[in-house]
């Protein structure tokens, strides 16, 4: 076997491994989140044991300061994290992709204005923007956090979409398609979106991870999902005072958070290879 072949096959194996691990991590998270809709080990709102109990057979991860089962809180936190990630990316994608495609077609002046506006929005820290939106709304709720993060993501997605769409629009096959009578709408849906999708989807996964972390930060600061919605960020904040006596309270949500974000990124990497037929195929 020549060295070239070897490197190709290792690369392929690495990609499929990334996809498997990513699917596993995100899949476990999703399964746990769905499970909490029907069943949790204990009542998430009421004490089910002593305060700050160490992990035991009854409470696998111990209990928190109020005697609530930590595993139950963690499981519900998975639901919150997925909801925030999905919601924020959905809002960001809907607004961002539309704006980006419009900008790609806009006249020079309109395009410049849009690009500058997006740059300013992106330069503004996501977390600060989210805090502003949350603070401006009457009551902090999970939905204001999702909306705020979605808006922040939309600026990043719009800028990326604009650049990618512009690049695709310069390709010969767009001209070729136009000469056979395809309308601009047809060009967008048949050629532009499918061709920018591989890159966009990877970015969506990245933004998903960032949104999950941002929500944890907001919750940590008390600006995220209010009780009784458990959030990993709030679990971390609540565990702060007792981190030396009961470190599991900080370690468990931390690991959960990192696992979901890494899983999402690996999944994105694997998906890109599937979405783009010109990559990784034998030639």
């Amino acid at each position, binding site marked *: 076997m020549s060295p070239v072949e070897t490197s190709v096959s290792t690369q392929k194996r690495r990609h499929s491994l990334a996809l498997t691990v990513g699917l596993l991590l995100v899949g476990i998270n999703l399964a746990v989140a769905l499970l909490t809709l029907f069943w949790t080990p204990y009542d998430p709102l009421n004490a089910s044991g002593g305060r700050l109990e160490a992990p035991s057979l009854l409470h696998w991860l111990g209990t928190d300061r109020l005697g609530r089962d930590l595993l139950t809180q963690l499981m519900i936190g998975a639901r919150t994290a997925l909801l925030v990630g999905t919601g924020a990316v959905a809002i960001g994608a809907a607004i961002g992709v539309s704006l980006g495609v419009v900008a790609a077609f806009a006249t020079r002046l309109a395009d410049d204005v849009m690009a500058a506006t997006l740059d300013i929005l992106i330069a503004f820290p996501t977390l600060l923007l989210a805090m502003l939106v949350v603070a401006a709304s009457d009551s902090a709720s999970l939905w204001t956090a999702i909306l705020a993060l979605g808006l922040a993501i939309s600026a990043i997605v719009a800028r990326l979409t604009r650049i990618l769409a512009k690049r695709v629009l310069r*390709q*010969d*096959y767009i*001209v*070729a*398609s*136009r*000469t*056979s*009578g*395809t*309308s*601009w709408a047809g060009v967008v849906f*048949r*050629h532009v979106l*499918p*061709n920018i999708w*591989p890159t966009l989807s990877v970015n969506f996964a990245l933004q998903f991870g960032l949104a999950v972390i941002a929500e944890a930060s907001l919750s940590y600061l008390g600006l995220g999902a209010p009780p009784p919605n458990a959030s990993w960020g709030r679990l971390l904040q609540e565990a702060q005072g007792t981190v030396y006596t009961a470190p599991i309270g900080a370690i468990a949500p931390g690991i959960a958070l990192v696992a979901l974000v890494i899983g999402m990124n690996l999944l994105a990497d694997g998906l890109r290879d599937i979405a*783009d*037929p*010109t990559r990784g*195929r034998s*030639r």
Partner: protein
Amino acid sequence: MTALLDIRGLTIRAGDKPLVSDLSFAIRPGERIGLIGESGSGKSMTAMAATGLLPPSISATGSIELDGRQVVGATDKVMNRLRGVAAAVVFQEPLTALDPLMKIGRQIAEPVRRRMERDGGKASKEAVNREVRDLIDKVALPQPDRIINSYPHEVSGGQRQRVAIAMALACRPKLLIADEPTTALDVTTQAEILKLLDRLVRETGMALLFISHDLPVVAQVVERVIVLKNGIAIEEGPVGSVFGKPHHDYTKTLVGAARLFDEALGTTGS
């Protein structure tokens, strides 16, 4: 007989720099014309202008009538009804002219469906598929099942150009504009594609505007040629007289160069 494509006093500019100056020619239905010149002589720009697809930074003045309708200054809506119907284009680089992420079967199906809907009929899936297979057959692509389910990077350059030709034919245009369709191909494939184009043009009776820098290639498929230099038409006439007794120095150089090249290869060309 009214002309299918009637270009009068066409001037194309990029900023202040003229790319094509005061060009006039006409193509009647079924006529085969060659547009010859070295790269940068404005051949491709003329083709783009004829379909109203010049880049925004490049402007055209004068008159281009395609199938009786004015192209210069026409809106996109008007042009979209002409594109494909009046004229379709085959491009030089067959790889970049196909969407890399769309299977070939679907790419051919797009213009087929559009034409069927345009003709008033309903484009059922079966009818479209049948027509796609028919077209693949017409352009002599082997293994239709494999081709339909392949992506452009999975087939050879010659096959890609056949796909591009099939897509242009799918529109059933009155005029086929072939912009250097054989330049990116090797000599053997070139000859096959030329034969194919020649056969298809004769069979369907469409007009052909063949753009090339390659004299022997042009001579094979057209009846009349226009020689373009720096955006100016310097010579025009039937293939035999222009190539046999060129008047203009530039044409003489082109013919001479082609002859030298053929002699160097040890062939007589065609």
